[in-house]
């Protein structure tokens, strides 16, 4: 029994497109190498990571391969056509709404059995398709030998093997794709077992009669409706009452015959069919023992309930130490350079003139960006890319799952938290990997609260310098406690609807230098284009405030707040500076107080209160900007109000317990 699912309607609208301006999409399960293939042909534009589900938005590029051109689209990875996560919904939406000339189904050959479940569903779309068996060499190493010819004849699709990470056979893949575009042949879906197939066909028949013109094949719709898929159920609207009863009827037939919910019946069918296909085209040898044992031994240690945490702590401490050492090394000469240029500038322009202030503001803004980006952000991103590409992050997520549950999140949310210690901006962007808006919001708030490297300079420069290292450590610990409390609070206010983490732990990979550098560039570009202009604008505003003596007005406006916190009124302006650029708080504190010896004018208690307040009080302008983009205006405002309240409460509490606290720490 064969089913020609090529929908005539979609076929006609597409035929014109196919040759004129073909649109090829890369589609597959998470971490199967779609972005790697995309980057090989389109140049580095799509972030790849050894962490499932990193592509959360689609990337598109016009590419020319061997003299032929097409639009190539890298869609977020999906495990099935039932979209549960946000990124997967985007993929599904794209598949149904946009004209697609050809699908390249990218498969991680080491997980062929699981991947075929998606392939079977994609066949139902009835669009021209070919299979790309990626990471074929790794499958061989694992002892999985796949006969691509057999698979091709079973599915009646072209099957091309590739090793995208090394750029092998990518040309062959696209040659086959273009050939298929010029000579498309119908795609056949594979039948399920007899009884299930009869039910699917019966519902398919009903749908064909009632919904004659559909963008998706009625057979796919029938299957997905039997699976109670909410996305496809929308296709029945607006007047689907009659059809819903029909669907219910066929579901109950399946349920009675198989003693399971209809979605489980269909899913089990697909699973059995995939395993059957897998067995027909694959020979599994015992892998070379050394390889197999190596990975499982490493994971026994890395994910051990005791040693796992020791290793994690060591890796993170080393990681941060290395970055900060390297950063400090680079920062000094850069700052010296800028101090000299500032001196030269002051000498060249008449003192106190309007232009001198403007020039100074501009220079400080540019310098601030360079002094943060070059020494800290770039080493951080390189280190991060390294940890990511090796495949360590999913292991951290596993280790931290228990702790993260306490703050209402899952292990996956640990990634933005770790990134937050570097810079809040990339941390907030990383919340996209989380499935629900709720998780994204809580993780974004946590990422804002975690002291970034700019706040670290304040913690170490003020508290560390004047009150000692233990006091600095105390602030970090206090911060973790606060993040945990806020997380718990938000988790209570916004009840969880997802039952927990399901994370495929990928194999370890040898990272490539090129990918790491390209990724670092791509991520720092986000900072350069988005955050840096804000930094420069902020500096200009600060300069203007000096020209027009806004600081007096601001100081008196902030006087009540400073009174509550028990801080000198002269430092009000520094808090505004801190919103623009966190690390400026300390620099401006020195300026506002008129001395580099802060401890001569501020008591140890005041230094502690000031630092704690500045660490928590408000996300910097760049962070706020990213926050509005990622979680929305209202949520960004709510998050900022929340952090501000936390800062005031903590400031006041610490003010009163500081004398006792300082004796303890």
């Amino acid at each position, binding site marked *: 029994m064969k089913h020609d699912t090529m929908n005539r309607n979609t076929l006609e609208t597409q035929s014109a497109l196919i040759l004129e301006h073909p649109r090829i999409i890369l589609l597959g399960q998470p971490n199967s190498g779609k972005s790697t293939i995309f980057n090989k042909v389109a140049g580095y534009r799509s972030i790849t990571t050894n962490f499932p589900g990193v592509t959360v938005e689609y990337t598109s590029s016009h590419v020319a391969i061997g003299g032929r051109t097409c639009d190539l689209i890298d869609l977020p990875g999906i*495990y*099935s056509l*039932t979209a*549960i996560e946000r990124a997967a919904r985007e993929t599904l939406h794209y598949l149904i709404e946009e004209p697609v000339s050809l699908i390249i189904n990218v498969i991680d050959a*080491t*997980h062929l*059995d*699981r991947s075929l*479940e998606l392939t079977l569903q994609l066949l139902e779309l009835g669009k021209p398709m070919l299979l790309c068996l990626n990471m074929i060499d790794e499958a061989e190493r*694992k002892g*999985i030998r796949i006969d691509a010819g057999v698979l091709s004849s079973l599915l009646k699709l072209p099957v091309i093997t590739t090793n995208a990470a090394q750029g092998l056979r990518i040309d062959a893949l696209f040659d086959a794709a273009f050939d298929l575009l010029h000579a498309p042949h119908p795609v056949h879906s594979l039948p399920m077992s007899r009884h299930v197939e009869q039910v699917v066909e019966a519902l398919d028949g009903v749908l064909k009669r009632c919904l004659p013109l559909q963008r998706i094949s009625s057979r796919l719709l029938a299957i997905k409706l039997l*699976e*109670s898929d909410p996305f496809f159920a929308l296709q029945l609207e607006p007047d689907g009452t009659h059809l819903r009863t029909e669907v219910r009827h066929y579901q109950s037939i399946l349920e009675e015959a198989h003693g399971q*919910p209809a*979605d*489980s019946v269909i*899913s*089990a069918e697909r*699973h059995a069919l995939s395993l059957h296909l897998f067995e027909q085209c694959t020979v599994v040898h015992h892998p070379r023992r050394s390889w197999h044992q190596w990975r*499982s031994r490493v*994971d026994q240690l890395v*994910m*051990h*309930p005791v040693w796992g945490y020791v290793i994690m702590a060591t890796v993170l401490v080393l990681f941060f130490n290395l970055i900060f050492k390297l950063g400090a090394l680079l920062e000094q000469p850069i700052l010296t350079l800028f101090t000299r240029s500032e001196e030269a500038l002051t000498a060249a322009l008449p003192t106190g003139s309007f232009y001198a202030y403007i020039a100074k503001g501009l220079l400080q803004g540019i310098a601030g960006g360079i002094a943060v980006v070059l020494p800290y952000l770039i080493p951080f991103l390189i280190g991060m890319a390294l940890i990511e590409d090796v495949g360590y992050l*999913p292991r951290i*997520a*596993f280790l931290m*799952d*228990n702790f993260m*549950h306490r703050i209402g999140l*899952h*292990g996956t949310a640990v990634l933005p938290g770790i990134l937050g210690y570097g810079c809040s901006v990339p941390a907030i962007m990383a919340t996209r990997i989380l499935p629900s808006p709720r998780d994204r919001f809580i993780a974004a708030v946590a990422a804002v609260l975690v002291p970034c490297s700019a706040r670290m300079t304040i913690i170490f420069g003020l508290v560390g310098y004047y009150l000692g290292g233990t006091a600095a450590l105390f602030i970090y610990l206090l911060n973790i406690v606060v993040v945990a409390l806020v997380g718990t609070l938000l988790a209570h206010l916004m009840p969880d609807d*997802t*039952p*927990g*983490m*399901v*994370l*495929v*732990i990928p194999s370890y990979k040898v990272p490539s230098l090129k990918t790491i550098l390209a990724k670092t560039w791509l991520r720092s570009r986000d900072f350069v284009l988005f955050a840096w202009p804000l930094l420069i604008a902020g500096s200009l505003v600060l300069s203007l405030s000096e020209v027009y003596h806004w600081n007096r007005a601001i100081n008196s406006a902030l006087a009540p707040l400073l009174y509550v916190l028990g801080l000198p009124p002269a430092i009000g302006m520094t808090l505004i500076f801190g919103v623009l650029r966190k690390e400026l708080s300390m620099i401006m504190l020195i300026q506002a107080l008129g001395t580099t010896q802060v401890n001569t004018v501020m008591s140890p208690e005041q230094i502690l209160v000031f630092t704690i307040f500045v660490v928590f009080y408000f996300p910097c302008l760049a962070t706020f900007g990213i926050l509005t983009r990622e979680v929305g205006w209202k949520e960004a405002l709510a998050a900022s109000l929340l952090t501000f309240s936390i800062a005031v409460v903590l400031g006041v509490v610490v003010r009163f317990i500081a004398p006792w606290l300082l004796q303890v720490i």
Partner: protein
Amino acid sequence: MLSSRKKAAAASLFLSDLHTGSHGRIAAIRGGWSLRQRLNQVGIHPGDSIRVVRGGQLGGPVLIHIHSTDVALGNRMAAAILVDLDEA
């Protein structure tokens, strides 16, 4: 404790209660639509053989090996999966 389990091989156990190194077969998934879907998606179905790489008796996540893949499951996810242990 393990010997008593061997005797009662017919009874299914929750995945979240299994020790590191246990082998078994998934007997059932007790959960709603979205939980079933999320597990099915990554290749976890009733009838599949699994090995517990890292047990979650202390309330932590569970790491299982299934169809040549390692999958980490939150403790609540694992508590929805019933497993029949293989006779040792």
